[in-house]
């Protein structure tokens, strides 16, 4: 078993084909003393029989023989075996060197030749065989590695798709959780679940009109609905008081901005970070008379300015226990009048320019790319 497996103990097998027994025997002796295994055949037919039985590295054949010729033998060997063939020609043979090589011979010797030359040629052809075998082995190894890497690629692809799906699911449940927490925070307030969804959409639309990045446009869609979460910290006696608030009560009411920001502070989530800014700044006014910090103009975070318009527009055009919804035209008038006072003039511009889209959002027409929240409005009283 070891014999076949290790190079060092492997003995090449040479087959000598010649119709003259003296030449056969002479060649056999030389080949065997050079350390190779040697078989002999007196004809091409006998040679083919031996080849069928035994792995053969090199066939050395004469051309002129009774029965099939050396050339015919050469062709048959090349057709069915991987053996190399060395052809020996006499003076009278009509085949030239090139012609014999073209038919597949590895080498060629003409009579008379020196026996030492034969051994040198054998070694040379055997070395070539070794190189070819090594190259084939390397190629096979490369090919199988290549196939294996392809399988890795396929599995990697599957893994990425699964991760993406898992990530999407996680993201959806994260957004769903945010939405339900917002609903919980607003449960006692006059706002409806639809209000907070519309808030997100108006704000997101405005952000898009202002050419904010896709990421910010997405984030504000989910962050804007959290603008009033701080109301959870306001006493019911103030929050759902039927009449007008006293000045003191109003001061308490104002703290929902700060409470909201505190609730949302220090999150690693970009959405919650934006929501914190919005909660704190959505009651600031362009002219600096808003609360809680009395910031003016560009000192107010852009997202706060955006949500401020969205919030007021939605409040105006929504039904409340104490008022009917204003028609859109009237709401537009009011917002227009607050340009440069309550609102950032540029934002008013953008908002009014896109008023058709705003109305479509209000009517519940969802534009492409919008993420639909799960319907939990039936939870409300």
């Amino acid at each position, binding site marked *: 078993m070891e014999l076949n497996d290790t190079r060092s103990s492997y003995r090449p097998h040479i087959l000598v084909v010649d119709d003259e027994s003296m030449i056969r025997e002479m060649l056999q002796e030389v080949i065997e003393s050079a350390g190779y295994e040697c078989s002999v055949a007196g004809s091409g037919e006998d040679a083919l029989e031996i080849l069928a039985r035994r792995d053969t590295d090199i066939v050395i054949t004469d051309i002129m023989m009774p029965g099939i010729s050396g050339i015919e033998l050469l062709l048959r060997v090349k057709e069915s075996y991987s053996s190399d063939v060395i052809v020996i020609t006499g003076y009278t043979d009509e085949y030239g060197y090139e012609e014999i090589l073209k038919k597949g011979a590895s080498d060629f010797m003409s009579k008379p030749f020196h026996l030492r030359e034969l051994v040198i040629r054998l070694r040379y052809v055997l070395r070539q065989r070794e190189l070819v075998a090594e190259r084939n082995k390397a190629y096979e190894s490369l090919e199988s590695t290549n196939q*294996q890497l392809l*399988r890795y690629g396929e599995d990697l692809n599957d893994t990425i798709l699964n991760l993406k799906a898992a990530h999407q699911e996680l993201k959806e449940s994260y957004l769903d959780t945010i939405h339900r927490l917002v609903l919980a925070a607003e449960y006692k307030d006059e706002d409806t679940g639809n209000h907070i969804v519309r808030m997100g959409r108006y704000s997101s639309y405005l952000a898009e009109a202002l050419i904010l990045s896709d990421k910010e446009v997405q984030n504000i869609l989910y962050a804007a609905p959290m603008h009033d979460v701080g109301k959870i910290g306001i006493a019911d006696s103030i929050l759902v008081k039927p009449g007008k608030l006293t000045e003191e009560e109003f001061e308490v009411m104002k703290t929902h901005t700060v409470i909201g920001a505190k609730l949302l502070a220090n999150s690693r989530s970009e959405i919650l970070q934006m929501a914190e800014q919005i909660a704190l700044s959505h009651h600031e006014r362009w002219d600096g008379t808003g609360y809680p910090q009395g910031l003016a103009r560009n000192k107010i975070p852009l997202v706060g300015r955006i949500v401020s318009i969205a919030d007021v527009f939605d409040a105006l055009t929504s039904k409340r226990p104490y008022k009917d919804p204003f028609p859109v035209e009237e709401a537009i008038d009011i917002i227009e009048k607050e340009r440069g006072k309550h609102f950032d003039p540029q934002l008013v511009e953008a908002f009014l320019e896109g008023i058709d889209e705003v109305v479509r959002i209000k009517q519940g027409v969802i534009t492409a790319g919008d993420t639909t929240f799960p319907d939990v409005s039936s939870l409300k009283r």
Partner: protein
Amino acid sequence: MKKILIVDDQVEVRDLVEVTLRSKNYQVLKAENGKNAIKIAKVEKPDLIIMDVMMPGGTDGIEATRILKKDVKTKDCRIIILTAKSQETDRNEGLEAGADYYFIKPFSPLDLIKKVEEILE
């Protein structure tokens, strides 16, 4: 930490299998032929051997499996054969030699990890 011995004459396969198992925190040993695999297995007593079949050096993976499963020192090692030999007769030969599982190359790394975890559980 569970110990796994990877036996393959192709360094690429040894490396790929090692990388595949890396995320699972196993201790990985490697051998490039059947003889060395037996030598290492006797000393290190790995929990699992992942064994190629066609390897130079005299002792192929089937023979090595047979020897390891007979030896008192190594008979408790679980063995997964991992080979390009895909015939049903090859599989039977592997399982008869005592292998616990027979995997065909090219293999799915995800399937391999799953099987390894299952066997080592």
